[in-house]
C-alpha cells in the first residue's frame, strides 16, 4: 500500500470501512478535502456543515445517538478547542459513537501563527471520559488507527500533522489501541518514548545515540488514552532515564501522562519531558519550530546524553 501522508492513510481507511459499514457517515466544517474520497464514493453519507465546529460535533453526536457512526474532521485547533464543550457533553458524557479526526496538529502550520497550532489538544481530550485519544506515527499507522477506532464502539479523538511522514511501519504491521509498540530495544540507560510524528525523530535520535555507544529504547505510544500503563511501567523500571517526545505542550500530553504513571508506580527512572514550552511560539516552519523546541533528532540526542551524564 502506498500512502503519501497521514491524511492519506486516514482517507483510505475511511473509504474501506465505509464500504464495510454503511452506518458510517462523514462530516466536515468547510474542510471537506479531508473526507472528499469518502464523499465522492458515498455522497448521501457526507455532510459539510460549514465553518461551525460546535454545531459539527453536536450534529455528529445526534446522528450517533440514532445509530450512525459519524466521522468528523477539521483543522486540529478548531476540532479540539472550539468544540470542546460539545465533545465533553454531547460525545463523551452521552457515549455518542463519534470519531473526531484532527488534522494539521502540532506545529505543522507554524508559519500561520498561534491560532493554527493545535498543541494542547491531546491534553484536553485526555480529560474527557469515554474518549480514546490516539496519534499515529506514520501514514500506515494512521490507516490502521482509523480502522481501529471505526471498528471500536466508542468515541475517539485522533490527531496528526500535515507534513509528509516517513514510513515507519511496513504493510501488515500490527496495531492495537492502548498497546505501546516497542520499536527498538535498548540498554539500562535511556528510553525515548514518543507519540505521533515524534516517533520518527525518536528513531533518528536513537540511531545517533548508537554512534555514542548508547543503546536507547524507542517506544511508540500511539494511544494516549487508554494509556498502556503496564508497558510504560515496565520500561520505566528497565532504564534510568526516560525522555518523552511530543509535538504538543509539555503540560497535559504524553509527558504528563507518562509521568503520572511512573510517579504513581514508583518506577524509579527520571523523566524529561520534551515538547513545546509554556509560551506562545514564534512564527516559523515546522522544522524551525521543532528545532526551537529541541525536538530535532540532534537535539534529542543531546538531551539524552545530558540526562545520562547527569
Amino acid at each position: 500500500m502506498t500512502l503519501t501522508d497521514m491524511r492519506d492513510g486516514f482517507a483510505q481507511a475511511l473509504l474501506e470501512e465505509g464500504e464495510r459499514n454503511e452506518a458510517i457517515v462523514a462530516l466536515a466544517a468547510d474542510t471537506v478535502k479531508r473526507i472528499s474520497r469518502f464523499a465522492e464514493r458515498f455522497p448521501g453519507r457526507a455532510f459539510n456543515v460549514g465553518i461551525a465546529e460546535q454545531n459539527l460535533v453536536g450534529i455528529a453526536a445526534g446522528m450517533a445517538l440514532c445509530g450512525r457512526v459519524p466521522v468528523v474532521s477539521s483543522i486540529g485547533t478548531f476540532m479540539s478547542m472550539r468544540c470542546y464543550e460539545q465533545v465533553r457533553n454531547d460525545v463523551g458524557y452521552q457515549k455518542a459513537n463519534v470519531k473526531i479526526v484532527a488534522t494539521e496538529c502540532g506545529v505543522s502550520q507554524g508559519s500561520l501563527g498561534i491560532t493554527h497550532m493545535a498543541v494542547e489538544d491531546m491534553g484536553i481530550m485526555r480529560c474527557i471520559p469515554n474518549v480514546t485519544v490516539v496519534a499515529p506515527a506514520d501514514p500506515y499507522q494512521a490507516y490502521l488507527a482509523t480502522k481501529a477506532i471505526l471498528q471500536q464502539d466508542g468515541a475517539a479523538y485522533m490527531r496528526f500533522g500535515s507534513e509528509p511522514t516517513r514510513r515507519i511501519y511496513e504493510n501488515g504491521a500490527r496495531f492495537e489501541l492502548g498497546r505501546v509498540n516497542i520499536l527498538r530495544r535498548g540498554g539500562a540507560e535511556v528510553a525515548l518514548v514518543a507519540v505521533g510524528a515524534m516517533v520518527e525523530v525518536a528513531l533518528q535520535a536513537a540511531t545517533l545515540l548508537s554512534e555514542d555507544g548508547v543503546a536507547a529504547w524507542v517506544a511508540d505510544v500511539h494511544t494516549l488514552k487508554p494509556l498502556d500503563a503496564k508497558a510504560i511501567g515496565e520500561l520505566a523500571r528497565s532504564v534510568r532515564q526516560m525522555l518523552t517526545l511530543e509535538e504538543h505542550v509539555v503540560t497535559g500530553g504524553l509527558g504528563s501522562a507518562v509521568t503520572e504513571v511512573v510517579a504513581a508506580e514508583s518506577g524509579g527512572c527520571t523523566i524529561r519531558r520534551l515538547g513545546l514550552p509554556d509560551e506562545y511560539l514564534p512564527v516559523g516552519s515546522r522544522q524551525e519550530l521543532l528545532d526551537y523546541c529541541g525536538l530535532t533528532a540532534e537535539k534529542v540526542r543531546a538531551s539524552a546524553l545530558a540526562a545520562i551524564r547527569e
Partner: protein
Amino acid sequence: MKRGQSGVRLEDQARNVRRLIMEMAGLADKSHAVAALSEVDILVALYGSVMRHDPTNPQWPERDRFILSKGHGAEGLYATLAWAGYYDPSELQTYKRYGSKFAGHPNRLAVPGVEASTGALGHGLSLGVGMALAARYAARPYRVFVLMGDGELNEGQVWEAAMTAAHFHVENLVGIVDRNGLQNDGACGSILGNEPLEEKWRSFGWECRTVDGHDVQALSKTMAGVPFRPGKPSMVLANTIKGRGVSFLENRYELHYAAYSPEQVARALTELSGGSKEGVAR
C-alpha cells in the same frame, strides 16, 4: 393516574404535571421550577398528543425524539415522562439526591425516555439536526422536536444549527421556543434583545408559527401539522409565562433557580389542586 391516554383532559394532566414539579421543588435544595412550569403545556401537548412514542419501549427505533435543549427545565421533563408512563412518579422523590437518576439537568443514560443529556445551553438544536438527518436512513422517518428557551437563543450555536437545518432541508425537525421573555438576569429584551424572533427564524429559512404556549389544544393542533412547509424545518414560537400556574411564581425572573419553603410548596399545590391528585410523588 392516567398516563397520557384518552379520557382525561390534557389540561388536567398538565395541572398534575405541575403538581409533580412543585413537589420536586420541595424536595430539593434549589430548583428551576419556574422554568419547568413555563414549558409544561408544550410537553403535555407533545407527549399526550403530537409525538409517536411508546413508554413501554423507550428504544423503539421509529419513535419521535424530543430534546430538552433548555436542560434546566428538567423537572418539567421528568414529571411529564412520569405522567406519560416511562417510570413511576414516586421515583422522582430522589430528585437531585446523591446517586439519583434525576439530576438538576437530564442524563439520557440514566432516565428512561430522555433522548439527550443537556444543560449547557445551545447544544440541543445541533443534536436535533443530527438526529433528524439520521432519520433519513431509518425505515420510517421519525420527527425530532427540540425545545429551547428564549434566553438560550443568545448562544451562537443555536444559529449555526438553524442555518444547517435549513440548508439540508431538514423538514422532520421541529424547533420550539419557550418564549417566556425572561432569563437569568432579567427580561430577555433588557439582557440581549432577540426580537423580532419570527422574522429571525424566517430569515434563517424556517417556517414559523406563533402560538399560545399554554393552550394545549392549540399547541397540539399546530404541531400536528408539521412540517409547516415541505422541505423546511418548522419553528413554533410558544408564548409562555415563566412560573405559569402558581400565582406567586409567575413572571419572577429572580426565581430562575430558587429554594422553596414547605409553606410555599403547600400553597402552590393548593393552587394546583383543581385536577386529579392521583399519582403525585408522595
